[in-house]
Each structure stands twice: as structure tokens, then as C-alpha cells.
């Protein structure tokens, strides 16, 4: 393998500094809201959040990017299942696959386990590129990834401006693209996302993650602007985490601190954490309404809705929901969501 190798990333737990330091480029795989799913992918994965099946469809069909390796995060049951399936399909055109398994409860024991996991991830990336990072490589990777983090912060500030200086569709597009290119290019993409928006309904999106911007585009076609979100391909996408340190052990320790300090998507968060996160982010973004969009097959956010609704009511923010969204019913679900956002306070159920 060579430096510059492409490492596919499934999930939102990978500290990209590690991949960059080893000389590889992370390429985040997110799937799609509506792409056709291969029968083989569905048969292997069973009932999961469909974007995982879309990723497997891409990998089996060779339609995705050329990858030298894949890292899968244990941050949802769908992703974990995808890892188990990919592991079974080794030798069938699937590159080497590695699981990153980071616990969620902060304790001395989980920190020890997480450090060992990051060390294993580092070793895997080193094996892919044949390059072991030295002190300069660790520091340079940190500097570059921090620049990405700064650009993300600037983008979020533009989204939250009144009126917004960029819409949610463009922001999400930039975030998804930034997760698959070298840091300098990511900064360019993020900073280029600018598009003055008229005033209008300010929307915070919660629920399922958005593997592509199609739903955002449909919602924003109504004139509303998605000013913030709390799913793991949007504002909670783990871009920019980096530790300025000269060796792997110190970097891993710092990244473990960062891991336990961040907010995460529904599958690995408690109901209380999600309700608190959604309320805090919606309030900070001066959102008028919160839109919960939940795919069929993505069960975790369903369990958050009641508490999230209560938390938002306390802040005087209405929650509109569209659940059980399927690829076939996507247009109708979005239409109902738009009606909820723009047309009153009635809650909508798909």
C-alpha cells in the first residue's frame, strides 16, 4: 500500500487526525435516502437503517470510490451489522476492514479501552499506508485537522446568522464533501459555502442522519432555512478533532478526552442527552421549529421523541415529526414535513 491511500469511513467516531497522520485520506461513506438497494445487501443486513444497505450496495457493486481499506464505527447497530457482513465478505472484492469500537460511558475502564481502540486504528492505518507517523506527522495532521474544525465553526456561524448567510442544504453538502477530501480542500469547500438567505422559518433538524442533502433541499425549497441540526452527518459530524502532541500515545489520550466530551447521534446517546442536545442547539440557533425526520429502520430516534418534545415545549419551540419515512414515501413525507414547518403547529405522522 502507499501513502495517499483512500480509507472508507462508515460512522462518526473516527478521529481523522489518525488517518491523516498515517498518510491516508478518509473518505466518508454515508449511503443515500433513496438509492436502489441490491438484494444481496438487503439479504445480508436484514432490517437496518437503509443507508447502511446503500453503502453495502455501493461496495458490492463497485460503484463507490476506489478504497484501499474501510473503517467501520460501532456507533449504530446498522453500522455494526455492516461491519460483521463486510468481515464475512473478505476476499469478495472488499478491501481490508477494521472496526473502531468506542464506548460511550466515561469511566477509567472505558477510557483504557478507547485508547487501545485508537491505538489499533493507528496500527491499521499504518498497515494500509506502510507509514508510521513521526512527531512532525502528528503535529502537521493536528494543524490541518484543526483548520478544518475552524472552517466548520465559521460555517456554523454563517448558518446561525440572522438572517442566515448560508442554507442548510449548502452547508450539509459542504460537510459531506469535506469529510472525503484532504484537509486543505475541506477548508476550501467549507469556506466556499455561502449563500445569503431571506428571513423565513428557521428550522432545526433532528432524528435520522442525512446521508445526502436531498431532503434538506426539498424542505428549503419552501423558503424555510435549516439553521442547525443534531445528527451525525450535519453539525455533529466529527470534523476538526485534533490533538497537538508529538507521539501516538499522547494523541490517543487527547482524542479520548475529545470523544467523551462530544454530543453524539441518537443510537449511542441516552434519551436525556438527546433531548438536552436538541433543545440547546435549537435555542442557540434561534430556531422557530424543530423538525424530526426519522427513517423506517432507524429506531433509536423514535425513543427520543417524547422527551425531546417536552424539552422543546419548555423552550417554546414546536416539534414537528415525520416518522417511518421510506424511500418510496420520501416525497410525501417531505411534503408533510414542509407543511408542518410552514403551515402551523399541527404535528404530522407519516
Amino acid at each position, binding site marked *: 500500500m502507499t501513502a495517499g491511500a483512500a480509507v472508507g469511513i462508515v460512522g462518526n467516531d473516527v478521529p481523522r487526525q489518525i488517518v491523516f497522520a498515517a498518510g491516508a485520506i478518509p473518505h466518508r461513506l454515508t449511503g443515500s435516502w433513496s438509492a436502489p438497494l441490491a438484494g444481496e445487501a438487503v439479504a445480508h443486513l*436484514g432490517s437496518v437503517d437503509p443507508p447502511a444497505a446503500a453503502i453495502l450496495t455501493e461496495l458490492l457493486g463497485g460503484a463507490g470510490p476506489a478504497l484501499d481499506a474501510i473503517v467501520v464505527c460501532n456507533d449504530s447497530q446498522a453500522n455494526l451489522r455492516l461491519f460483521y457482513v463486510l468481515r464475512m465478505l473478505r476476499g469478495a472484492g472488499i478491501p481490508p476492514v477494521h472496526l473502531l469500537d468506542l464506548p*460511550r460511558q466515561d469511566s477509567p475502564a472505558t477510557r483504557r479501552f478507547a485508547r487501545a481502540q485508537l491505538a489499533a486504528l493507528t496500527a491499521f492505518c499504518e498497515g494500509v499506508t506502510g507509514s508510521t507517523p513521526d512527531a512532525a506527522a502528528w503535529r502537521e495532521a493536528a494543524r490541518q485537522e484543526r483548520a478544518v474544525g475552524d472552517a466548520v465553526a465559521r460555517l456554523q456561524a454563517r448558518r446561525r446568522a440572522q438572517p442566515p448567510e448560508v442554507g442548510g442544504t449548502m452547508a450539509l453538502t459542504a460537510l459531506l464533501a469535506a469529510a472525503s477530501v484532504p484537509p486543505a480542500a475541506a477548508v476550501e469547500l467549507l469556506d466556499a459555502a455561502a449563500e445569503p438567505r431571506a428571513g423565513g422559518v428557521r428550522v432545526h433538524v433532528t432524528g435520522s442522519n442525512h446521508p445526502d442533502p436531498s431532503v434538506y433541499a426539498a424542505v428549503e425549497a419552501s423558503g424555510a432555512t435549516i439553521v442547525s441540526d443534531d445528527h451525525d452527518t450535519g453539525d455533529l459530524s466529527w470534523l476538526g478533532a485534533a490533538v497537538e502532541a508529538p507521539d501516538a500515545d499522547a494523541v490517543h489520550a487527547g482524542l479520548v478526552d475529545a470523544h467523551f466530551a462530544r454530543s453524539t447521534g441518537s443510537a449511542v446517546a441516552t434519551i436525556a442527552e438527546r433531548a438536552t442536545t436538541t433543545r440547546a442547539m435549537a435555542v442557540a440557533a434561534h430556531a422557530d421549529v424543530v423538525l424530526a425526520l426519522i427513517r423506517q429502520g432507524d429506531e433509536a430516534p423514535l425513543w427520543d421523541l417524547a422527551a425531546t418534545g417536552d424539552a422543546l415545549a419548555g423552550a417554546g419551540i414546536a416539534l414537528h415529526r415525520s416518522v417511518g419515512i421510506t424511500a418510496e414515501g420520501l416525497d410525501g413525507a417531505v411534503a408533510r414535513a414542509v407543511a408542518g414547518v410552514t403551515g402551523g403547529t399541527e404535528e404530522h405522522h407519516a
Partner: protein
Amino acid sequence: MREGRLDSAVAATAYQREWFQSLRRTSGPDAPIAFVNADAPHEVFRAMGIPYVVNQWWASVIAAKRRGPESLRRLSALGLPDDSRQYDALALGAQDLPADEAPWGGLPTPAFAVAERGGDVTHKIFELWGQRPGTETFLLSRTAADPAPEGWWEHVAEGWEEVFGRERIDLLAAEIDDLIAWLEERTGRRFDHSRLAEIMALGNEQAQWNRRTRDLLAAARPTPVAVTDSIPSVMVPQWHRGSEWAVTAAKRLHDEVAARIERGDAVCRDERRRLMWIGRGLWSDLEMYRSFQEEFGAVFVWSMYLAIAADGYARYGPDPVRALAARFVGITDLLYVPPMSSSWYVKEALAHGVDGVVHLVADDTPGASFISAALEERGIPVLEIRANNADSRSTEDARVGERIAGFLRTRVPARH
């Protein structure tokens, strides 16, 4: 031919009912009980003298008493989904049933609710238990499965460090220590490691009886025990694992099976098709398991309950907490994650000489296709049914009985 139920099953069911009523009479502020998921380290509670009720067992009672739909409606009324992880969530909904409608009078309020964080939802369900008055929740981490060595069932009792990996066991052992401290603080009781060692030894003895029983049944032709009898005979003692009663019950089952084989008893004298049921039990329709005997001579000779009790639970080692962590760290993986799961089901299918497999694929079980494929590759036909075992609405929609009959007609030829 003996058609009567196993005495072991009758005794186990009666014991469980009496045990539960005793629990209802005695539980209270000074006698706290725990509500635990199947893959939580129950032995900690036994060692501390804290009675515990297992979520999956209680769900099976709720389903068998046909209180599932109403329990799910209670969840829905709270704004919670009624079509997500029903097997894990049923008990939460049932807790709001009026006492006169609740199975066996209802579950007393648990002081402690304990589960691990596997999956996307179970940890949230247990979080909600902790929001009910009088109940606190403790969650353990759940790590993902490393591939176990081939033939793990021959090594896992002693060589669990290799099978699961040191780091996974380190983490769970540390969290079990945290759980112990958490319980000590709340109960004022002191944990006794030597008591846990005794309980582990009894659990291992119980597993050895189960192994002998499984081996007897694998070799027996015709099969002398209905799975609807072997399941309670194994699982009720499993929920009392590590007690003297449970060891006695496991031995009693073994002896009764041996006696039946000795007498030549048969569930179905004209046994022409031997079937394996992979997946959780269909609690709301246990008669289904016997309904193919008359027309097809088809007998379910295998369920995972006895088999995993035989191969999956024994753990030996000098440090009882660490051995306990090794018991739970990957037991779900052994059942559900390929290649550990698929190779084990093939081994069991061959040992039991089954002619066909009905594979109930639940929403939360990964890699089911690899299990079915591994069996088919060995020439064993498989019928996959996708349904939730605890939700009678789901199994009715799946037309389980009708599809099994079709499967038997078209893919499982009768033995001559």
C-alpha cells in the same frame, strides 16, 4: 409412547410461579429487587442476595398471557414507539397495566434496572425504567465481537481469554466492579467474592448437566422431548443460575430425558422429519411447535435454549468477577454474529440430524443470511421467517404455520 409433559417442565414452571409470588409478597423498601436484561451479570445480584427478574423471561410471560398488545399500547400512550424492540420493551409497557390485568399480578417495582448498551434502543428502554419512581438504572458497556477461534464451543469454558480478547473482558470486569460498588452503596450490603465463586461453580455444574442433556437429545431417535417442554425446563433454571435449586433442576431434566430415551418414548412415534428452530421462542403460540406432527411427522428437536445452555455458559477461572465478565461479554455474539454463530448452528444441526430448519429472523439479529447459507451449503434446507417473536401482530402477519407447512411439503422430504 409417552405424551405427557416432562415432569421437569411442570416442576420448573410451578417453581417459577411460586418464586414470583413469593417475590411479590416479600419485596419492598428493605428487600429490593432488580430487573435485569438477559445479558447482564445476574450472578452479582445472587451473590448480594438481591432477587432479580429477567426482562426476556418476563416478556415471554407477558406474551404467553396474551398481554403483549395491551402492553405495547401503554408505551404508545406515552409517546413511545410500539413497533420497536418489542421483546425488550414489553415489560416496560406492562408495568402500567392495572394489577388485575397484569400477568401473575404484575412485577413489583424494581429498585435496580440493569442492562448493557448493545444495540440502539435497549439502553434507552432501561433508561426509561430509571425514570420510573423507585427505580434506578445502571448500564454496562457492550463491545463488539472479535472473531472467536473456530470451534469456540470446545474452548470457551476454559480459554475465554482467547475467545473474547483480554481488552473486552478487562472492560466488562471493571464495570462489574463498578456495579458491585453501586449496589453496595445503595443496599448497605457487602459483596463477598467467595460467595460469587460458589455461585460460579454452581453455574458451571448446571451447564455441565445441560451439556449432557443436549448430547443425549442429539443422539436420540426418535426425539423423546417436545421443545415446548425442554425450553422451560432449561430456561427457568437458567434464570436461577448459580443456585442449588437450578443445579438440581438441570440434573432432574437430564435424568428424565435419559429415562425417556431408555424407555423409547417419543414425542411423535412416526417421526419422519426432524426440525430445528433457530431464533427466539414463539411464546404467544407454543402449540405451533407441535402442530406439524400428525400431518407431516415433523418434530422440532432443537431450540437454542438448551443448546446455548450446553455450550455457552460454563466459565472456569480463579477470579470469579473476571470469569463472570467472560460469561457475558460475548454470549450474544456467539448466538448471532457470524462466523461464530453460523458455524455453531451447523455443528448443532449435524449433531441432531435435522432435516430442515425454521429460522426466525428478528429485527436485531445480524448476519442471519450467513447462518441460513451455511446450513444450506451442508444440504439442510432453511425457511427464513422475518418476524418479532414477542409481537403476536408480527407473527400473525408472517403466517408462520402456513409457511412452515408449505416448507415441509416442498423442501423437506420425509425419511423412510
